[in-house]
């Protein structure tokens, strides 16, 4: 079996096709699913194959998400299309008070095997109500797993894992990545939830990122090489459960870390990661854990302002610089793995 290049949207459609063939309880519910293969082409070919299992609904997000919860409780595996991640706001009770709590609150009696799929992100001049990255809200709600991949191969493997998982999974996918292509093997595979991936091995600093910012970080790493800095880039892929093991391994080696995400800075997932690293790996750190994120404003429409708000490669370079200058001397780091040989 070979490898071919697939876009993120086709990788997603393929994952859904494979899973729906194997499990009749999977169905897709949301707006505008069938007429044009989904608004991002992410459902291409599916309605022809499974005409009864793609449900085009009225514009009623509260009920779309609530219906997913109810169907999951009664033997189905719903895949809920949120249309735009920004619209989770219109079903926040269903997500936060129902989906996330029902299993726990009823003493573990119920399982909710559902996926809430939410295309997010800015950079397309879609302005304040269609550009957000809202993963922090979801992560701050115990009971929800959170996935935010970057590469097509990861999209495919993680969509499959999310569908097979018996808990609610909120799956974010960046709008600017739908046409992003990459190699995907023809052979069937699943990528387990909770496993991060090293996208570029390096020894000088750990860059923790996810979703589209992985791309910016990979680009930034080239400029860093020219400055003599060999960065290790970790695509977290799953934010909950978090692969802290891999993070710790990397930080122990590099002794420096930054977090890069597109969501705005304050209260973002970077704050959580910085705190975790600080608490658990303090003795290995030679510099502060720095966050690179969007500025704390709603997304402005005009491209000049939007570019300024979103983190760019120079912001990542500045973040690395801030993390690496004013190093604590080696002598303060008793357990540090010396890789400077």
């Amino acid at each position, binding site marked *: 079996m070979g490898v071919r290049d697939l876009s993120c949207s086709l990788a997603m459609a393929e994952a859904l096709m494979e899973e729906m063939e194997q499990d009749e309880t999977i169905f897709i519910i949301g707006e505008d699913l069938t007429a044009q293969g989904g608004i991002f082409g992410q459902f291409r070919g599916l309605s022809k194959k499974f005409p009864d299992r793609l449900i085009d609904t009225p514009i009623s997000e509260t009920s779309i998400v609530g219906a997913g919860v109810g169907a999951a409780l009664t033997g189905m595996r719903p895949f809920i299309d949120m249309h735009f991640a920004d619209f989770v706001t219109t079903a926040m009770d269903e997500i936060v008070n129902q989906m996330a709590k029902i299993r726990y609150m009823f003493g573990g009696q119920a399982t909710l095997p559902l996926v809430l799929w939410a295309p997010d992100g800015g950079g397309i001049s879609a302005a304040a109500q269609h550009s957000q990255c809202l993963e922090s809200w979801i992560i701050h709600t115990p009971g929800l797993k959170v996935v935010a991949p970057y590469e097509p191969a990861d999209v495919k493997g993680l969509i499959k894992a999310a569908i097979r998982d018996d808990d609610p999974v909120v799956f974010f996918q960046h709008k600017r990545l739908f046409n992003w292509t990459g190699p995907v093997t023809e052979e069937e595979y699943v990528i387990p939830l909770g496993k991060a991936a090293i996208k570029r091995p390096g020894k000088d600093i750990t860059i923790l990122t996810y979703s589209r910012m992985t791309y910016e970080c990979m680009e930034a790493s080239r400029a860093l090489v020219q400055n003599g800095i060999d960065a290790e880039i970790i695509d977290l892929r799953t934010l909950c459960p978090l692969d802290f093991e891999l993070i710790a391994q990397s930080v122990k080696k590099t002794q420096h870390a930054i977090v890069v995400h597109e969501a705005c800075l304050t209260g973002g997932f970077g704050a959580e990661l910085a705190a975790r690293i600080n608490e658990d790996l303090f003795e290995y750190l030679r510099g502060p854990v720095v966050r690179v994120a969007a500025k*704390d404003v709603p997304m402005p429409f005009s491209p000049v302002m939007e570019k300024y708000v979103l983190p760019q490669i120079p912001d990542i370079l500045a973040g690395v610089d801030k993390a690496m200058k004013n190093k604590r001397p080696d002598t303060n780091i008793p357990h540090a793995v010396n890789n400077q040989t």
Partner: protein
Amino acid sequence: MKISTDKKISLLKKMVLIRVFEEKTEALYHQELIPGFVHLSIGQEASTVGSCAALRPDDYIISTHRGHAHILAKGAEPKYMFAECFGKTTGYCKGKGGSMHIADFSKGILGANGVVGGGFPIMTGAGFSIKLRNTDQVGMVFFGDGASNRGTFHEAVNMAAVFKLPIVFVCENNQWASTSPAEKMVAGGSVANRAHAYGIPGFITDGSNVLKVLEAVQEAVERARSGRGPTIVENETFRYKGHFEGDRQKYRTQDEIQHYRMHRDPIDRFQTVLIEEGVLTKKAVAAIWAETKTFIDEAAQYGLDSPLPKPEDALKDLFTNP
């Protein structure tokens, strides 16, 4: 209803203004001068113009993602709208909003909302405000057939009915919500029908006939203004363009669009009537189009010539007292 000759001419002029604005916007979008999403109202002019013609300057409207027409009909200036669509600093929202989010609060335009159904509850608040301030203003909330399926619609209509709020709910039923036909998605046969459940009047109008729209909406506005509560008016209309510019429109046929254009175009119909009635000559109608085109070209040029914002302007206007 008796409508003066001057009023008729002004209705035609407004519809032409919207058509020309939208066609210019379409062209500019395809020249890649307008970033982001653009949703056009071509074909729906009578619904919007007839509705806004029943309002006073101090009345409020709330608009939608497909908002240019509402905003123009309520009196906004095209040059600042174009500037906003280009993301320029002279735009209504200083380039922060774009095509989907234009507002002119000085004219009672409380903003175009990108969240479908986002406007209903906000207008409920304007309704309470009008009552508490003891004015006789009216609030008009525009929405599509698709938006009538949001819970916010039902909550707001009920709340408005319970408190007899001075609100007119104007549904522009253009038969489609993105790729979904209204026929399939709106239970109960029509949006106006839903009014009965809340004990308020609901009317369906021929939304391609500007005078019929005005007549129905005028009645609803008077009802609201005199403290008798809300009304739903559903204007049956049609969008000629894709849901957004760039929409492949695989879900419908060109024949369907052409048919409507040929037989029910709101501007063609009204022009013909005005010429037949002797209100305007063919030459006068042609002059309206020509003048409007020049006016719109100048407005667009103003926007093009305007400066871009500074990147750091992104940090302004978040709080009143930072």
